[in-house]
């Protein structure tokens, strides 16, 4: 019995450690590779860089217009996140607090959008964006990203708003708040957790999105960082180390966002699983 327990503990540790190595090793190697010379990297890929080549990062910025792509990504992701949070929380507010005939139908239609494989909708998105005259603009990506995550955001935010007691609103009404004041001054501040959760997911998915960034844009002036990495890969196949530097740069914002909002992400996933 004792031996069994010990074996079980060892086995469990072994499994957890294997997954840890599998998750971490490639990333540590990536950072290490981004600090090597190409000769070092190809000669002995597992040795530590000596000395670290921070010049790779400078090269990455110079040769792939990384600064431009980075600022495009920031602008597009933040705009889509802000717009998504606003539109979703307005809709979630009405669907959560007002009982009207079509409310439940509208809500359930909206959230079936979570399960639609949006990559199947390439052709209509492409023609829609072209018809609107938005092809190859940042606005095309901002609108698309805002819309794609809308069902998930409404679902998360409505979940939080549903738990706000009605008395708070009645008090606000007695204080003479109109509809808009009630929303912006009472409901939004209280639902902050839900809104931030949805916004974190939205930011990460916009920052990392690839298919529509490729499909709906064509010029470097509007393209995102993800496209930069792709082109880096095809154009600079000999300069691996700069490509790795570019990848490291591209993941820093996501990792930072995750570190700050880790608990939000985890609680958001939990909320989502309750209903499923």
């Amino acid at each position, binding site marked *: 019995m004792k031996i069994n327990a010990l074996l079980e503990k060892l086995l469990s540790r072994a499994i957890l450690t294997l997954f840890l190595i599998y998750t971490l090793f490639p990333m540590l190697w990536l950072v290490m590779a981004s600090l090597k010379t190409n000769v070092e990297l*190809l000669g002995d890929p597992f040795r530590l860089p000596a000395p670290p080549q921070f010049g790779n990062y400078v090269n990455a910025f110079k040769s792939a217009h990384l600064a431009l792509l980075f600022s495009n990504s920031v602008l597009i992701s933040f705009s889509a996140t802000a717009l998504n949070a606003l*539109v979703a929380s307005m809709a979630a507010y009405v669907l959560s607090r007002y009982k009207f005939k079509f409310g439940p139908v509208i809500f359930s239609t909206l959230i079936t959008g979570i399960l639609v494989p949006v990559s*199947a909708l*390439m*052709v209509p998105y492409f023609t829609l964006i072209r018809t609107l005259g938005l092809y190859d603009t940042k606005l095309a990506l901002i609108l*698309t990203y*805002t*819309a794609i995550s809308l*069902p998930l955001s409404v679902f998360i935010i409505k979940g939080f708003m549903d738990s706000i007691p009605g008395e708070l609103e009645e008090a606000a009404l007695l204080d003479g708040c109109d509809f808009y004041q009630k929303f912006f001054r009472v409901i939004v501040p209280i639902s902050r957790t839900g809104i931030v959760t949805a916004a974190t997911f939205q930011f990460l998915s916009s920052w990392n999105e690839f298919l529509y960034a490729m499909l709906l844009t064509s010029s470097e002036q509007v393209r995102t960082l*993800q496209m930069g990495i792709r082109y880096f890969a095809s154009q600079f196949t000999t300069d691996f180390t700069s490509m790795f530097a570019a990848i490291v740069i591209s993941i820093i914002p996501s990792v930072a966002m995750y570190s700050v909002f880790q608990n939000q992400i985890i609680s958001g996933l939990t909320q989502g699983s309750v209903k499923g």
Partner: protein
Amino acid sequence: MQRTTHFRTGAILFLLPALLLFTAFFLYPVGYVVVVSLMKWDGMSSPGFVGLRNYSVLFHDEVFRISIRNNLVWACAEALIQVPLAILVALLLARKPKGWKLLRTIYFFPHVISGIAITMLWVAIYNNERGLLNGFLRLIGLSEWEHNWLGGLSSAFPSVLVYGLLYIGYFMVIILADISSVSQSYYEAASIDGATRTQQDWHITLPLIRGTIATCVTLAMVNGLRQFEQVLLLTGGGPANSSSVLVLYIYKELQNFHYGTANALGTVLIVLGGLVILTVRRLFNAAKYDM
């Protein structure tokens, strides 16, 4: 009286943007995909109605068959390998071994980073001459196992598919959260009856988190149907289309201005997604009545 109309205007105004975006990016596109899938259209000249011809062309098309097969293999692999691994790791972490919170954080990492970044990493790992994998095999004296992983007809698709299956953090977090919501009193009672931790996991935890497992299986399978970036960057669908998947095929058909077939493929993808959701729901509900 005046106040209620005022509030009604507000409610409509607040719903409007979401409904507009939803109509433009979900309702209209889904309808469009289905309707245009019945047409022959290059995107410029006027479209002609051809009924189900695009579909019958697809069913005799080798690339379509390979793509469907690969997508189904992918969906099943996620459900049968990734989800069980996530459950296993979640059960282990639920025992709160030292450092479990840190492990939970680290396991989730790959889901924060873009698919492009991870995939480019694996481009470097699988690379034939200078790749990390072949280098590692040489290092430990297994050079006869060296292989052109992404270039081989039989190894390309498995190589594209397999590495993502071991990134289990996303489902692990969902499952772990559900496990921690199970009431402790069940476990206390079971301990008094002399049940071991493993028995408790098997007879108490697993049945109670069945709903969450169903959610994860659905998400995993739909995920397997949506795959694209990994394939595009690692093999581009090659060699000889052996690693092609539906979304990549849609993308290629769109670029060739075959809007009809591209949308027939889109319709197939949407229908497959719907079937997965219904099947998983039915399976897990049936299991509930059996018990």
